[in-house]
């Protein structure tokens, strides 16, 4: 750890990690909560047995169910299916929204996957989650209690929900990409000599410092700011004005408390 290049890089990483950590406080929980809200709302609106969101992951290519809601939803969480299979795979691969009803009459309807969730639906509607120019996942809803099929209106409403989900996922991906960047940069510093474990050790060294900061007044302030998300624009402008005065004060030098 005496290489000055590595020290400087770690310094830069520490700063980037700090920023990322701040951003995570604003976004990650909100993102997960928003995805959950979307499936909760989907279940309520459609009076459905279940709703879930599967996100695309690489190496190997797969669709992973991240959040679920509804009486029959829980079994889907954590499940992973190849994009070359089933309704969800098709919707992901083609970007085409789709609903199938009376799926039990289809002898091979990805029944294996359905059975792994502990619930085999009679009807299913699925829409792609589209972020800019790519599909990042699929929102699906199973079995409306009020109707054996899904209407056009249902499909269009689902597409609106899917747009919200895609926006939330985008925020999360930015976070993850930042962490990926750390790993890549560190790997380059090690010129390929550093093992996965070495990289992990350096990353955790950089982030342990952050964790120790958790309870400082600064992080408490960050948490407070994160809680301000629901304020009106006018109230936020007022807070921003106050913070601007404080920041100007801080830039004139650290004050002893």
């Amino acid at each position, binding site marked *: 750890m005496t290489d000055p290049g590595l020290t400087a890089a770690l310094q830069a990483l520490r700063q980037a990690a700090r920023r990322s950590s701040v951003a995570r406080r604003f976004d990650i929980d909100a993102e997960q909560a928003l995805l959950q809200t979307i499936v909760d709302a989907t279940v309520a609106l459609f009076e459905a047995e279940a709703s879930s969101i599967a996100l695309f992951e690489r190496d190997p*290519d797969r669709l992973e169910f991240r959040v679920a809601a509804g009486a029959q939803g829980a079994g889907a969480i954590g499940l992973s299916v*190849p*994009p*070359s*299979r*089933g*309704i969800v*795979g*098709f919707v992901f*691969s*083609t*970007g*085409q*929204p*789709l*609903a*199938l*009803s*009376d*799926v039990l*009459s*289809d*002898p*091979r*309807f990805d029944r294996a996957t359905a059975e792994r969730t502990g619930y085999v639906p009679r009807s299913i*509607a699925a*829409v*792609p989650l*589209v972020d*800019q*120019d*790519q*599909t990042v996942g699929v929102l699906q809803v199973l079995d409306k209690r009020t109707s054996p*099929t*899904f*209407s*056009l209106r249902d*499909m*269009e*409403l689902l*597409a*609106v929900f*899917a*747009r919200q989900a895609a926006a939330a996922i985008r925020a999360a991906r930015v976070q993850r990409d930042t962490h990926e960047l750390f790993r890549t940069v560190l790997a380059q510093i090690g010129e390929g000599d550093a093992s996965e474990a070495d990289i992990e050790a350096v990353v955790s060294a950089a982030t342990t410092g952050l964790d120790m900061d958790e309870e400082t007044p600064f992080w408490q302030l960050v948490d407070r700011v994160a809680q301000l998300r629901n304020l009106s624009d006018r109230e936020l402008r007022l807070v921003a004005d106050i913070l601007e005065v404080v920041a100007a004060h801080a830039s004139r030098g650290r004050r002893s408390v």
Partner: protein
Amino acid sequence: MADPNLPAWSEPFTPDARERLVRAAVQRVVDREWAWGGATGAGVKVAIIDSGVEGSHPVVGGRLVSSVAVEIIDDEATIVPDEPIDMYGHATACAGIVVGLAPEVEIYSVRVLGADLRGKGAAFLAGLEWAVEQGVQAMNLSLSSKSERLFPYFHDIVDDAYFKHVSLVCAVNNVAGLSFPSTFASVFSVAAHAIPDPETFFYNPSPPVEWGAWGVDVPIGWKDGGTTVATGNSFAAPHICGLVARILSKHPGLTPFEVKTVLAAIASDPATTTG
């Protein structure tokens, strides 16, 4: 007034909105008897660019004559012979709807969906290009690309298809954002209506969707000889494709422009159609 937050491409075809589709009488110069009376689709080659048609499925009626797949080999999209099986069921559903309307068409299956998603857009492009070269007269595309990088290539191929008199029938994608070729002007872009009749279809003069066809609770063939009931613009497009095949079998050599004109002339009357 439609909710502006809804991607309401099917909205023009709902009962309340259809009065806006009424066209001047001059459009109605031909009737359905002239357009497709007695036509079976005979002599018309239709490509299904999709997940691979299941040749033995009853809904396909033995009309599958060719199966190829696009595989990405060394980063090159390559056309290879394919087994007549369907990865998902979707291509079979589309082929079944086309054959249902035009029982003597010849179906060319071009599978562009495969396990390797990295080359997805390129495979779609290559499949489309291959089908144009085969001299098919119509194609059903119930899928679309969002790759901005591929936009100009799709545009070139779609223009090429138009000038070679290939009618490209595309399901529109009810999801916000760039999506092509369904948004290109020369193609037959199709969204769904809910009237359970394969011959009820509407012409819509307002973009982005020109045609409305049955796409709600459509009985379809699915994989491994199965059947199901499906909703989606994916299933509206092959209804228009089947009707295009009928028209082309009775009037070979019509250009896509002429086929659209005939279709517009014989479209269901929005003022009197109920359902």
